[in-house]
């Protein structure tokens, strides 16, 4: 456990994992262009691990497909995430993990915005501000302790 030895949320509610995306014949047709969609972004971040529990963000409903917006032509991706409790001190860390994962995996053309779902966190505006500030994100990533924790969250133990 990265911070302290007491769990903030000792008994989080667990949700079922959604099934893998169904692959249709169209997906194998090289001539059809597949646009980026909600589900694709969701698949990217659903397996990020929670910093506190050995569970994924999907299992805790921190990220949900409905809270993701993709505008392919405008090159915008907007993600709302929901901390499990309103005073969660990990919110910024979770937000950062999502940002870093998308930074590494999405094409550079996309502008990624990660924000707390409105009304789900006490310090939502502060967290949002931190996550939106490029300088602060870059500075955070240079903190060796922090980047270690983020890498642990992102590391995908299971393929697919």
């Amino acid at each position: 456990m990265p911070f302290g030895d007491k769990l903030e949320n000792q008994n989080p509610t667990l949700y079922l994992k959604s099934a893998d995306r169904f692959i249709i014949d169209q997906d194998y047709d090289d001539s059809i262009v597949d646009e980026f969609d909600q589900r694709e972004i969701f698949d990217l971040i659903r397996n990020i691990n929670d910093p506190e529990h050995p569970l994924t963000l999907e299992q805790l409903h921190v990220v949900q497909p409905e809270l993701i917006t993709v505008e392919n032509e405008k090159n915008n991706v907007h993600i709302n995430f929901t901390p499990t409790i309103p005073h969660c001190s990990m919110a910024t860390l979770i937000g950062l993990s999502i940002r870093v994962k998308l930074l590494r995996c999405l094409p550079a053309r996309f502008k990624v915005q990660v924000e707390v779902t409105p009304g789900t966190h006490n310090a939502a505006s502060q967290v949002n501000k931190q996550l939106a500030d490029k300088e602060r994100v870059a500075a955070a990533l240079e903190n060796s302790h922090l980047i270690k924790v983020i890498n642990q969250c992102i590391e995908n133990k299971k393929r697919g």
Partner: protein
Amino acid sequence: MENNDLDTTVLESLTKENDIYIGISKNFAKDVLLSQLKILDVIQKLQCLLLSESVPKRDMGVLILSTTLQNLEQHVLNAQELSVLSSYFIEKLKDHHQVASSALKGVLSLVLFNDEIPKESVIDLVSCIFQHITCQQQQQPHRYLIYEIFETVLKQHLNAVESMGIDFVYGVISSIDGERDPKNLIYLFSWLQRFLKTVKLGHLSEEMFDVLSCYFPVDFKAPPSNNTVAREDLAKGLGACLTATPDFGELAISLALEKLDSTLRIAKEDSLGLLRMGCKNFDYETYYKYSIELWSQIQKEIFSNSDIELRHYCLETLMEIIRKLSLGDEKNFENLIYDITDTLQGNLLPESKLFLQSFYILNSVAKASSSSSLIIIKKILPLLENTFKMATSHRASILNVVVELVKTTIQHEGNSHRIPEEISCCYNLFCQTINDPDQNLCVEGYKGLSAILSCIPHDALLVQLKNLSELLSASLPDKVKEAVLGYFYNIAKTYPEETRHLLENDVTPLDTISHVRYLESLDSIVMLPNFKVYVMEVNMKCSLNNIKGLKHLNELLTKNCDGSLVKILIEKDFLNSLMEQLQNHKTCLENNYLQAVRLLISAIVREQEAESQSEVYSLYSNRNFELQTVNVAALSGLIVPLRRGVFSDYSKIGYLLENLKISDEIFIKETCAEVIGNLLNKITDELVLEENLCHLSALCINCETEIKILLTSWISRALVTRNHPKASLWIDNMIAILEGNLEAAKGFKILLNDSNRSISKENFCEIMPLYKQKVFHYCINKFNETRENSEAHLNAVGYLLEDVSKIVLLSIFQKALRLILQIMERSQNYKVLKVILQRITDFIQNGEQVIEDNLDDILTRILKLTTFNASMSVRIAALRCLHQMVVSYKVYKLLPMKFMVIEQLGICVDDRKRLVRIEAMECRSSWFLLDAPI
């Protein structure tokens, strides 16, 4: 060296490090055996050593004498001699400790003389060891020797052991107490079992148990290099010793209970093993005494432990214990089972967390004995039925529990009349569920019916059968179909007459699709002796009517390839009916149909002996069908599976060639070329082959390219597989055609690919071992001769790579590398590229050095292929390859390339296909994490 030349100096110069003394001992033994020497003479000759004051010399003397005795056979020495020798060795055991160790060897040889050696001498020898040799102070080999002496005495001198009584037990206990060497222990455990069973331990049984139980549970990790002793062997041996005699019963069970409570997994595993093994030798009363503790402890373990394997052990152990208890007092046993059911019945609500585990326990208890299963059925089944009726969810799980319990009881009772009425009552329950819309429930219902088949009343069964026969042709979900067929199989097996009658009288007309479904359902009973012929008759009829039936028959024959089904076809003269049917075709036929006909004829002819094959061939080969395609299909079906030496009608080659040349049908062309290949492979007369080859090569020069490619490829395959000297010539031809002809590369696919069965062992062709290796080496060398290869050449290499084995490719990887790199750079053939990328991924996965050595060259080419525009499968294969590198290779090897790869993958994550993007994203992520702190 002859022992006659032995003098004092030679003897005195001997050392233990030098093996010469063994030779001397052997010579002595030989002389004694040939009666040239007496044992007394040997001792006299060794006088200078045996009487020496120096310890090493005395030691050497005793060693030579011991080794001599070891090499003697039985009956050579008489009782008196042995008695004297024994007294002598007793003295030597009391001598200096160095001499005593060598004397042990002699003692072992002496006790091995089982008939002649007097009992008293054995007792004296053993007593002397007990008194004068402190076993645990000896070195490991000497301790082993002492145990060997004990074992031999136990095995061959039981009367001596009996007269020694408790002294022997005491001696053994004190000798083995504290043994630490695993090799010695494994030996000890192997013979102590017999010791414990034959010798009365008396008041020493607790001491003996203590000496052994200190090793329990065996916590021993064998060093990786030394694989002679495994923990499991030690644990097994120890377990067998601890349970060898009923005297240990109480001690062993308390020990097991104590260790079962520990947190160590090994301790739990061994304790359960001990309890299981104890069931063989311990008394029923012992188990009964501890039954309450045993039950509560095992139950706790099953409920609380998350280790599936351990839970399984617990259940097995519980079953063994209950089985043991069932042998004792009936009343007590019943009470115990009632206790168990009372404890568990509260858990049998599907919402309960312990539902499944409780069921497993009950099922294990039921499996243990017939009476326990009856009690459980009577007590639990009505309860479960009620729960099932009331439940709104998890109904299938409850029904599954019912079915499993019923199965267990039926297994115990068989067809006996003791089957309780509770089981018969289940019939209605199962009947209701088979019509339920919930598939899982339906499946369980059929499984239940299968289980209680013997209890279903006959009338009801006939109705069931009627309903089932309708389901055979119906479209059902896969799992329901499987359950229905399982039930149908069981009925057909148990009531063949009724089933047969019903099937034969069922005349419901069916459309083609339903008919095929019906045939597929019948497949489930085709191997039942009563139905074999019937099912085959139905299949034959159907296959003459439509192509689906024909295909199905082929599948059936491939699935059940023991030949018995084909025999039925032969007996019924199906080939004739099929030929008649073919005669009726007037219009153009699909290739599928023709292939199916070909396969079916081949399957029938293949099973026959040479003589019958020859008859069949002459009977049908000259039939003239209206359609040329049918002619070729039938002829190829007849020729391909012929045994070697049967075919002699060489005029047919001309006929095939003629067809090959003039036909426009691709089926005819391919088939004719295949058949010619098959024939050439099987020609045994070298001259005939030579003549045919000459003719064919002349023909190849003038014909069209397409035909030339087909013919050359098949002829080459025919020759390379039989390792013919002309093969290389034909491969050269193939390479020559490659010039300016992209299509020709496909010929190389034919050359090594085994998926087309025309030239294969099952069709009696000659397939030499290692032919692929030879062809591959030859081709790679040839291709390497040219500096700049055309794309056709490169594709040909790609096709060869697909079928060559990994070891062969690795052996000449350096030679092939240049070509592989060229393919990756220049080829546009996605199939070839995919094959190569998959092979490289495979090599990376297995950590082959060859890729690592050329990492730079290969990696840059793979990177280029990640944006291969023409095929997404190539892009995906390339990305997987890159990902595998991160998994398999050391970080420092890849680090120099990291930024180049990440940059390139930045393009791939914006690929137009989502499946490619997923791979690219994962791959890029893993490259980012390559050296990242985690």
